[in-house]
């Protein structure tokens, strides 16, 4: 196996990412941000970066449990809230999602999971108006590439500080930022149903897939070269297919082009235009 080093300079990462959050929030004339805390590592790290960038008083942490959510998730979210001391809210989503679940007795876990993720997005964007803060995203590079997220659900945000860091790099930065150990050490999970873990559902570990993604994406290896570098052929095929199939989740929906100038094709401006 080729020797791979995904280690990052955490000091530099911290400086760039907090600078990014501050810049994106203040350039639109705002000073506050809001973030949904699942109790997991990604949201804990995004939250810690937002607090460092904007000050604890300017960040609202929102916990949004469902009745079947693990108690650990709630407790772990509280751990980091207590550590960083920002304002927080707990808004249970059970009463919002159950009526929809009840319309179809045969509803699958997948559908329930998507509904919950989208409900949390609705709550966050509503609270964003109340708190006058921008929604900070928590998706990492691994899950964006694998499409391991709910479109317009957990992937919805006003800005994403973590989207160019692999999960294993998130762990490294989290240790450097003193995220509580129980949050770093536990198995990553979307906590949409009991005993769900990311790695069980994906069928491989983050450690393995991050190395492969790093070769395929960052180092521009072809799938064949990745196999020659020591990765299992089937694993490489599974991952490359996943990346391709989930391209739609990473994009705005295509617009049928009929005019002389179409938004997204030849009407091109950055979001930071004039800011």
């Amino acid at each position, binding site marked *: 196996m080729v020797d791979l080093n995904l280690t990052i300079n955490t000091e530099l990462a911290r400086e760039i990412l907090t600078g990014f959050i501050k810049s994106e929030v203040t350039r639109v004339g705002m000073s506050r941000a809001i973030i949904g805390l699942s109790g997991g590592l990604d949201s804990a790290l995004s939250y810690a970066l937002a607090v460092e960038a904007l000050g604890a008083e300017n960040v609202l942490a929102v916990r949004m449990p469902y009745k079947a959510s693990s108690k650990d998730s709630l407790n772990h979210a509280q751990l980091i809230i207590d550590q960083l001391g920002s304002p927080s809210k707990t808004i249970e989503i059970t009463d919002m999602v159950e009526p929809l679940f009840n319309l179809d007795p045969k509803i699958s876990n997948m559908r329930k999971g998507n509904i919950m993720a989208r409900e949390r997005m609705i709550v966050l964007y509503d609270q964003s108006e109340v708190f006058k803060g921008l929604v900070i995203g928590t998706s990492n590079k691994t899950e964006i590439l694998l499409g391991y997220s709910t479109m317009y659900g957990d992937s919805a945000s006003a800005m994403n500080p973590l989207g160019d860091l692999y999960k294993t790099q998130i762990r490294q930065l989290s240790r450097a930022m003193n995220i509580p150990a129980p949050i770093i050490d536990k198995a990553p999970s979307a906590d949409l149903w009991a005993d769900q873990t990311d790695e069980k559902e994906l069928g491989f570990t983050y450690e393995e897939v991050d190395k492969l993604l790093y070769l395929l994406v960052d180092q521009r290896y072809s799938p064949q070269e990745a196999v020659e570098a020591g990765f299992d052929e089937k694993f490489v095929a599974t991952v490359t297919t996943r990346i391709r199939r989930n391209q739609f989740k990473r994009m705005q929906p295509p617009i049928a082009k009929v005019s002389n100038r179409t938004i997204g094709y030849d009407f091109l401006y950055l979001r*930071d235009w004039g800011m």
Partner: protein
Amino acid sequence: MTQRLLLRWVILFSDKRGKIRKMKINLALAQINTKLGDVEANLAKHLDYIEQAKSNKADLLVFPELSLTGYVLQDLVASVAHKPTEEDPIFKHLLKASHDLDLVIGFVDEDSRHRFYIASAYLSGGKVVHVHHKVYLPTYGLFDEGRFFAWGDSVRAFDTRFGRMGMLICEDFWHASPPYLLWLDGADIMLFTSASPGRGLNDKEQLESARWVERVAKAYASMFTSFVVHANRVGYEDGLYFWGGATAFDPNGEDLAHGPYNEEAITYTELDLNQLRRTRARLPLLRDERTALTRNELDRILSRG
């Protein structure tokens, strides 16, 4: 000093017009953040930095690439273009300011046939001394300059009140030939400007792109036994991170100054032009450069096809 000695001294340190040339330049490198597409707001920042540099007795203040406009302009290009003339509502202020100190300004230049260039203007004494149009437009990876801009087609050194200089913009000096041409065209001071986005976070002390730029600027100073200075912007544009870190290297390739990363700043340093003589007396790379051999081989290589 006897009359004769004084005369010799004047001849030795005079430029072509017989004016006594200053042998030490107080150089200032500005690393600013910009407001994307808001030229007036960026002009105000320029004038503020010019005031600061003036009060610190700077002779020359260098602003980064596209300092008047911001970097990822896309469809904003036409609306932020300006001509470096006294009639231009933006440049008239900068030309006026250039009576106090020389300025390098980054902007979008529009020619008389409405082609738009990424440009740097050297202003001095109320006049435009030289304009450089970027000759290498990166159109790969996260760059898309070739889609929106016209390619410059010349690399020229130019005379200033401090001696002969050359200007290059970012990707221009990622290629070895433009600095080489400036060297042969007589530039002893190379002014590099960038809006360089940081890429390649790993376990090193700085991003890969920042380390690369610093390494090549230092290498050019060493190989061309010339002063090489670099001004790069700071701030963010849609998640692109500009790292700053202004640098100045002397003709020995030694560090003269290093600005901070990731924050607005002016970095000051003194360029002692006598160092050119001392270095080249020791290391006559310029004297020994075989330009005819280079031309012959280029002719051969280019005619082969």
